[in-house]
Every structure is written in structure tokens, then in C-alpha cells.
């Protein structure tokens, strides 16, 4: 008895502490809930990366270079806390596709966001295939004549505008590319082995310069000489300095939510949550009386634990996630209902209160476990297959199911036993009764 009461007190204090911490870090802004774009406002862009020109082994590396470049560019434009991630998609549709997901909180003009990313130049280096010869005819597929070179846009370190010197070219603006240390070695090796071949520099998918390799270039620089004006060359050099994409990207989908709409969604989500909890608590109190109080306490612990976990894990909350959380509040008390109903049966069979509590828990357990298993199956499949929207729902739902099971069997049990009702008098019977009995 003393033991369970100490345990109950500890649970109570721990929950109160966690609740205070969660609340305090939110109010002071020290550790906020992480909100998805549909709640905070912003734009999400999903791109497909065209890796068809890359050898299989280079794909991962190029994708991470792609991510770094976009991240750098997005940061440069002062977007706060952008998320840029790569994803391999299409596992279930056959063709594996490399995707780039860019989340820009606070940017609610979709076109502006697309342009912000879209201005990033795509710089590719290719070699003319042996035997192939560009004819210069308009319907010629120039891409088919070239094969990927060992050097890629990710090896670029910097670039600058220069004016060509020398007979015939004097004063023509060119863009000089400086490769990084790794690129320098690769470029030296490549030029050494391919003297006499034509090297193609492609910008945004168009060949802009096709010099012949005359000799090994050991210093790690290449020159793009196209029909630049000084201004266009300067702009290209500047854009390349922000970073060039190693592969071309194509926009697949966009999602933009205005900040005001997100704020409204958060507010109404909180209202629905509060009223949902109050209504469920009232129902449990009115129907189950004293055990109802225990159920409400267990429910409070549940809510606090889940909210704290949202911060701790952390879980990115979306409107669907909030819906899952509210739904899980209704389901969290299910276990309590199962336990109390069993307990009542044991009491009716003439058992003492303490025994009835123990028996009630024991016999309700398989049912609690099974009902949570079937919900868990759904949550896992949804999380595995879902889009980010559905994942948000599935994660919170799954988390809710697990935590509610734990709070029901540990917290409710401890609190009920800690009440320490031995007596078989009428009042205790009434308190443990329910409904109309």
C-alpha cells in the first residue's frame, strides 16, 4: 500500500514536471513544438533529379552535392530554417527516382520560391563519344552524342569573369571555372587521358562551350567561352559561385499554405483538443465515478507524456498529426473502459475491491493488447507507405496507441491501488459502481 502510494506520487510529480517543462519551454520559446508547413505557413517544392547521365556509383554523391548547393542557395536568400532533403522514390512503381524536397517556411509566394531555386545553374561536363561528330543541324540530338565525364558540377569551387587575351579573341568575356582539390586531380587525369577529344560544358542542359582538349590541364581551371556579353558572363559567374547543380532538376509538385491559414489551423486544433479532453473527462467521471477520476488522471498523464514526446523526438506536427492526437485521446481511455468493466464484473461476483482491481487488469489485458495491435498495424503501414501528410498522421497515431497502452496499464493501475479501498461498504461500492447501478 505504502509502495503503491509512493509510486502514484512519483508518477504524479514526474507528469507535473514534464507538463511544466513542456509548457514553459513553449511559452519562453526555448524549445518550441516543430510545426509542419501546413501549420506554420510556407512552401514545399518536390523535384525530380535527372540522374540518367550519371554512373550508378555517382548518384548518391551527386544527390548530396545537389542538396548542399540548394541548401546554400536557400540560406543565402535568408529563408529561416529551410529543410532540404533527398529521397529515393518509386520503390513501388518500378522506376527508382531521385527526388529533392525543399521546404521553405515563411515563403508563401510559390512562384518566388520556384524562381529562387530555379535560378541555380546546372553545370554538367561531358565528353563527345568516340566517333561522334556534331553536325550542327537543328534537329540533331546533341545530348546523345555526349557521354558523362568524370568531373561534375560538384567539383566546382569558384568561378570568375575574365576577359580573353590573345589574337582574334581579345576582350571577349569568358567565365573561368576553378575546381576544388579533388576536382583538380580528376580534371588533370581526365585531360591527360583524352587529349584530342572534344569536351562539352553544358549549362542548364545546353552545350555552351565545346573545347578540344589539347593537353593535360594540371592547374584545375577550365574556361567557358561562349557568346557572352560582359553582363551575362558576370551573372553566370556569380550564379556559379552560389553553387552549381551537378544534375538537372524538374519540378514535380508544390504545396503552399499561407501563414494566416496555418495559424488558424493551430488555434482550432488546440480548441478541438481541449474540448475533446474535457468532454471525454466528463463522460468518464459521470459514468465511472471514482475509477473515472483515475481515468481522467491517467488521461492527463497520457496527454502530457505525448506532448513532451512531440518535443523530445521531435515530431513535426501537421493538421493531420493534430487530428491523430485528438483521435488518440478518445482511444486512450478505451483501455480504462475495458479495465473498469472487467473490474465491475469481478466486484459483482463478490470479490474484494483490491482483488477486483488486480483481476480486472489481468483479464482486460489481452483485449487491450489486441485492440492496440490492430490499430498499430494500420499505423505502421500508413507510416511506411504514406506521403509526408499521412506519415504525420501515422506517427502521432502509432505513438498515441503505444503510450496510451503504457499509461493505462501502469498509471491507472497504480492510481487505483493507491486509493486503497478495502472496505466492502455501500459507499465504496457506489464509488466503484457505474452508470445506473
Amino acid at each position: 500500500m505504502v509502495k503503491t502510494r509512493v509510486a502514484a506520487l512519483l508518477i504524479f510529480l514526474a507528469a507535473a514536471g514534464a507538463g511544466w517543462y513542456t509548457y514553459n519551454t513553449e511559452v519562453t520559446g526555448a524549445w518550441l513544438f516543430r510545426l509542419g508547413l501546413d501549420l506554420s505557413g510556407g512552401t514545399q517544392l518536390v523535384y525530380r533529379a535527372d540522374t540518367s547521365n550519371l554512373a550508378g556509383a555517382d548518384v548518391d554523391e551527386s544527390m548530396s552535392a545537389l542538396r548542399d548547393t540548394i541548401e546554400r542557395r536557400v540560406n543565402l536568400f535568408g529563408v529561416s530554417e529551410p529543410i532540404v532533403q533527398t529521397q529515393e522514390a518509386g520503390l513501388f512503381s518500378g522506376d527508382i527516382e531521385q527526388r529533392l524536397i525543399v521546404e521553405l517556411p515563411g515563403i508563401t509566394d510559390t512562384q518566388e520560391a520556384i524562381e529562387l531555386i530555379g535560378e541555380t545553374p546546372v553545370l554538367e561536363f561531358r565528353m563527345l563519344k568516340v566517333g561522334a561528330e556534331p553536325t550542327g543541324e537543328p534537329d540533331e540530338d546533341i545530348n546523345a552524342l555526349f557521354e558523362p565525364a568524370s568531373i561534375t558540377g560538384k567539383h566546382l569551387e569558384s568561378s570568375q569573369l575574365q576577359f580573353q587575351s590573345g589574337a582574334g579573341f581579345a576582350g571577349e568575356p569568358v567565365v573561368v571555372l576553378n575546381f576544388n582539390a579533388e576536382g583538380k586531380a580528376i580534371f588533370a587525369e581526365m585531360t591527360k587521358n583524352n587529349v584530342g577529344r572534344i569536351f562539352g560544358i553544358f549549362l542548364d542542359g545546353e552545350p555552351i562551350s565545346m573545347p578540344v582538349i589539347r593537353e593535360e590541364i594540371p592547374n584545375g581551371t577550365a574556361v567557358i567561352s561562349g557568346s557572352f556579353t560582359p553582363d551575362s558572363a558576370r551573372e553566370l559567374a556569380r550564379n556559379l559561385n552560389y553553387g552549381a547543380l551537378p544534375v538537372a532538376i524538374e519540378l514535380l509538385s508544390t504545396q503552399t499554405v499561407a501563414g494566416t491559414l496555418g495559424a488558424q489551423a493551430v488555434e482550432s486544433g488546440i480548441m478541438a483538443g481541449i474540448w475533446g479532453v474535457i468532454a471525454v473527462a466528463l463522460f468518464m467521471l459521470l459514468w465511472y465515478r471514482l475509477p473515472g477520476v483515475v481515468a481522467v488522471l491517467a488521461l492527463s498523464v497520457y496527454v502530457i507524456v505525448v506532448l513532451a514526446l512531440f518535443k523530445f523526438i521531435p515530431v513535426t506536427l501537421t493538421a493531420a498529426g493534430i487530428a491523430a492526437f485528438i483521435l488518440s485521446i478518445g482511444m486512450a481511455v478505451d483501455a480504462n473502459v475495458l479495465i473498469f468493466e472487467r473490474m465491475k464484473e469481478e466486484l459483482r461476483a463478490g470479490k474484494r475491491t483490491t482483488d477486483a482491481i488486480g483481476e480486472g487488469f489481468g483479464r482486460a489485458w489481452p483485449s487491450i493488447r489486441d485492440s492496440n495491435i490492430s490499430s498499430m498495424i494500420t499505423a505502421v503501414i500508413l507510416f511506411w507507405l504514406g506521403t509526408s501528410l499521412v506519415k504525420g498522421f501515422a506517427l502521432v497515431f502509432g505513438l498515441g496507441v503505444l503510450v496510451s497502452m503504457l499509461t493505462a496499464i501502469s498509471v491507472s493501475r497504480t492510481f487505483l491501488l493507491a486509493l486503497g479501498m478495502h472496505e466492502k461498504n455501500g459507499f465504496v461500492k457506489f464509488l466503484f459502481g457505474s452508470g445506473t447501478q
Partner: protein
Amino acid sequence: MFIVKNRNIIFILTGIVLAAALASLAVFGLKAGIDFTGGTLVEVSYESIRTSPDVVSESLRAAGLEEFSLRESGESGYTLRTGELTDTQREFLAAMFTIGDNTAHIDQLSEIGPTIGTELRNKAFLALSLVLVCILFFIAFAFRKVSKPISSWVYGAIALVTLCFDVLVPVGFFAFLGHLTGAQVDTLFVTAVLTILGYSVHDTIVVFDRTRENLRINEERNRKESFDETAGRALGQTFVRSMNTSVTTIIVLAALYALGPDSTKDFSLTLLVGIVAGTYSSIFLATPLLVAFEKWRRR
């Protein structure tokens, strides 16, 4: 148990509800949303009063939008569904809705490319099949022990029948909702259906488990009791429990529907209908079906 006794009334009622759901599905049909077909969805709002739909439509056509559907949404907004946008159309989207000085704001814009649409559709079907397979296994596992006088597979089959009911009702309802408000089938709808599947199957299993437990105890104690009485008793024993677990879930879903964010309103309403159907089927439909089967078999 009144439910078992009045099972014919219940069967008629169930038939009516089912017929209504199927009719709604047949008449209104389910419209796939842009999640699955690809396309563009725009939510627009005005400061106070929306410009009339005719004027807006004309402005949209002038901007080069060919096929689109424009629906009034909320108090002063529109929902626009159309195909892919060009860069220029995207840039001047708010301007297309702004007629005179009645400024429009873009609250939400989603564009889904055709590849993503196909992928989401495949994933939705895969998720649905996987959940169904898992639930079949779950039912098979729950009724793995042989039982008398009705063999286990009958319990399993009836659990499946009630599950079909639980899904058909919200799906039929959603078709009706689509007719009323233009709601379309999206990933959230699929999520709602899967959640209903996961949640509803269990209640039926609990009632049936109790029936089988009662039958076993009767046999052990050599007590004579007709099957409908035993099944009715099991229903009575689990009635409050089934009702109360559903009531708490229905309470929070009602709160979510009434007070929650607009983006999850269709979702919570679908869930609500599904959970109500699930509760009804496990309490009012499953056991009467079982009793009717037993009666029919003995004839």
C-alpha cells in the same frame, strides 16, 4: 437480449443503410482528387465578399485556364481545381481572382505532377491491400481455436462481412459529401478508411470471443442454454464496454469536426461515420448474423 430477438428489424435497417450507401456510391460516384490524378488545387479568400463566380470564371479563362472547376468555399472564398499551371499563371494567380479592388489572397496552393499522382495512387492501393491482408491474418489468428457448435471460420467470415459494412457506409457517405461540397478522394480519405478498418475489427472479435467463452463454460458446467440466449448474453456482457469505448472516440471526433482545422473536417467526418458504422455493426449486426446463421444451419 433485445438485439438478438429483434434481429429481423435490424437486418431490415442494415439493408436500408447499405442500400443507401451503395446507391450514393452508384449515383454520385467517388471523384479522385489531385493527389491521385495530378493537377492543381487552389484555396482563395477575399477580405469580405467574394466576387461573383461568373466574373471570376471569365477572368480565369482570360488568363488561359481551360478546364477548371470553381466552387464557393467558406464565407468568402473559392476552391479552384485545374490542371498544371504555367509559370506566368502561377505568378498571377492572386491577380486572376482580384477583380477591381476586391483583393484576393491565396490561402493554399497545391500542385501535383502526374508522376506523383500515379505513385500516390499505387501506394494507396498497396496500403489498402496490405491492411486488408493483415486484418485477415488478425481475424484468422483471433479465431484460430476450433469451436462448437459453429466452427471458427464462420465467426471470421461474419467479422469480415461487418468490416465490409464498416467501410461501405463511410465510402457511400463520402460520395454523398462529394456531391454536396465537392469533396474528393485524397490521401487523407484513404487514411480515414484504413483507420476505420484497424479500429472496427476489434470490437466484433471481442463480442465473438465472449460468445465462445460462454459456450465453453456452458459445456464445462453441463448447462443447457439455446445458442441465441448464449450469444445474447455475450452481447449483454460486452455491450457497455463496446458502447463506451466508441462513445469516447465519437466525442473527440465530433470535437475535431466541429472545432478543428478546416483541412481535417472531411477526414474527421468520414472517420466519425465509419466509427459509428463500426460500433453499430459489431453490436447490432455481428451477433444477430451469427444467430441467424446458426438457426439456418439447424434447419
